[in-house]
């Protein structure tokens, strides 16, 4: 990841402005079309460390959805696919699961989630095949069922893919399958981390605006230390996650840095959701106020690819196995 090309500061600012404008004004298929016209996929290939933060933060802030996560997830898989990546969607493990399915070699049972699915016939899923990781390809006729998820965040275009006895094609196996899954999961964790932080930023902004204007006991509630401390805590959690995400691109262990960044983003989501909702009080609990949409977006994405409660154990286990505390980046 450290060798990826980057663009200069002026181009980066312009790109971020354009992407956040698109994510702000458009949603769904219109946003997808606009991102295609903008050439997001090419940008992603050329300068991922510029493209991913800019778009996914903007999506999180605006609360909009595109199919761009698929572009991100498919990148490490592209060279192994018999078809174009535009024909595919990646199925991520269901919430709380490590992989999408398991098989003894005969019967494949699976359950997973596609976020921001595009109209494409092939699903790619990481599964455990006789204890080894393998990537399989699935079609509608393979015996899978798809369900558009309503859930906590109906606006998050999420599809559940399930199957009990599925006929699947092997796409990648062996050590390469493990490496590809590492790369896919890491890329996904960073993109989702930025999207979560965008939503966290929106929650903090809404709560700060409210704390400045809402008057009780004759003063803006933002002058009360109890309120100030909550919002400061949310800000500090956000800054830590933002720094972890930004540093992940340069870390010598990209996989560990991805786990950390996602975990810290999820942690920031939980802290901001709790504190900002408390500051917004009654109005933040209504359907009419936009707050709940960002809360739902951040918390649902926290649960995908490892939540802030699951990941610390994974991280700790890696430290114990390595027998040392990595610095990850140096001055």
């Amino acid at each position, binding site marked *: 990841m450290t060798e990826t090309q980057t663009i200069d500061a002026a181009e980066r600012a312009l790109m971020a402005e354009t992407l956040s404008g698109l994510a702000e004004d458009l949603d769904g298929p219109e946003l997808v079309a606009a991102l295609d016209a903008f050439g997001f996929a090419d940008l992603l290939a050329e300068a991922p460390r510029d493209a991913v933060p800019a778009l996914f933060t903007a999506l999180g802030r605006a609360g909009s959805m595109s199919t761009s996560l698929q572009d991100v997830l498919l990148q490490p898989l592209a060279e192994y696919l018999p078809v174009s990546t535009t024909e595919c969607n990646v199925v991520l493990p269901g919430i709380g699961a490590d992989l999408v399915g398991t098989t003894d070699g005969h019967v494949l049972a699976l359950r997973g989630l596609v976020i921001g699915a595009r109209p494409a016939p092939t699903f790619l899923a990481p599964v455990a095949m006789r204890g080894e990781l393998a990537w399989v390809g699935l079609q509608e006729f393979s015996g899978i069922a798809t369900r558009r998820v309503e859930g906590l965040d109906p606006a998050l275009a999420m599809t559940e893919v399930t199957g009990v006895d599925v006929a699947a094609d092997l796409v990648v196996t062996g050590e390469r399958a493990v490496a590809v899954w590492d790369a896919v999961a890491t890329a996904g964790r960073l993109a989702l981390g930025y999207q979560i932080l965008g939503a966290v930023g929106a929650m*903090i902004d809404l709560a*700060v605006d409210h*704390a*400045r204007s809402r008057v009780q006991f004759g*003063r*803006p509630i*933002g*002058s*009360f*230390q109890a*309120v*100030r*401390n909550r*919002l*400061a*805590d949310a*800000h*500090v959690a956000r*800054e*830590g*996650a933002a*720094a*972890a995400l*930004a*540093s992940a691109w340069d870390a010598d262990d990209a996989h560990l840095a991805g786990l*950390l960044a996602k*975990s*810290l983003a999820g*942690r920031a989501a939980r802290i901001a959701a709790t504190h900002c909702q408390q500051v917004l009080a009654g109005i933040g609990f209504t359907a009419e106020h936009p707050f709940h949409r960002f809360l739902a977006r951040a918390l649902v994405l926290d649960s995908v690819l490892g939540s802030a409660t699951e*990941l*610390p*154990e*994974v*991280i*700790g*286990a890696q*430290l*114990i196995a390595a*027998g*040392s*505390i990595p*610095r*990850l*980046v*140096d*001055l």
Partner: protein
Amino acid sequence: MEVREFRAGVRAWIDEVGESLVPAIEDQSVESVAAQLNHQRRVQRLLYDAGWMRWGWPARIGGLGGSPILRAVLGEELTCRALVHTTSWSMHEVLGPAVAEFGRPDIVEDIFPRLLRGEEFWCQGFSEPDAGSDLGSMRTTARRHGDGWVINGEKLWTSWAHHATRCIVLARTGGTGSRGISAFLVDMDTPGVTASPLETMAGVDEFCSTSFVDAEVPAERLLGELDAGWRVAQFILSCERGPIFWQRGAWLAHHLGLLLDAAGDGRSASALGEAYQLLWAFRATSKSTQDRIGTGDLPGPEASVDKIMIAAADQAVFDVARDLLRGDIETDDTARSRAWRREWAYSRAATIYGGTSEIQKDIVASRLLGLPRSA
């Protein structure tokens, strides 16, 4: 000198002289600041003679030049191996930059090399019995006396004042509040200056109550402008967010590493992972602060975030230690456990010293989030 080259040089030097650099934790009686300082003095002298101690400080004060980042790297390479204790290693970093910046050049030229060689330790006379978080309410005074000043008052929590050669004292020279405060560089052997050690909850004679009774200070010992001591104080607090935080982070990582063998099950892995991620959030955040300092910037209110983070990581690391070492901190009396106990106890103060977490959150709320100030 490039950072990479410097780091490689320091590492090679540590490998070479390793024999004579006994880890701080073994070289010192864990209960005594005096022993800790003797160790520090010895290591600092070796580092000074080898040149490493002088990099990152300007040539005019006895340094060899280069970015202040070099000092952060040196501190990291030493503390991550526990070759020095992180608190004794901080002392020249807390006050050195302010004296270099605000001191009269001829005085600084004279005393700074002694600080770098470990021949002198300096202490910080800010807090008072009635002025902690509300530093602006301090009552120590400096009155004109002939060409110079006479200082009267009492300072509290002056770390290592009983071993210090000099003290930066904030004293009131004008009106009320944060205006009308000046900073002075006072020799600790000045008649009328008395440092009385106080023990911490860990039983360490870490800090003092330091009284000033008609202590005469020459005019040239004023730091910066008259009545502009608040600026000096802010500068010092900013400096704490620099190399000191970076090496404290390395010290915490070192201690977390010592716990890896004690961890096994999922619950302990999770606790370790949790502490490590807080430490990483700090490190990733602090890296941009260090980079900014490296370009000559002074950290602003954003560095309050760094302070809140490192305090949280500090306590998280030693909370994990208490859990994973299963009773050592509470009931074991070996030297090793006493060292852990002292470090654990010290971590309790992480959210207090250098500006409490509540004060930092208040700064975040006002300066970074734009919330209205408390009435």
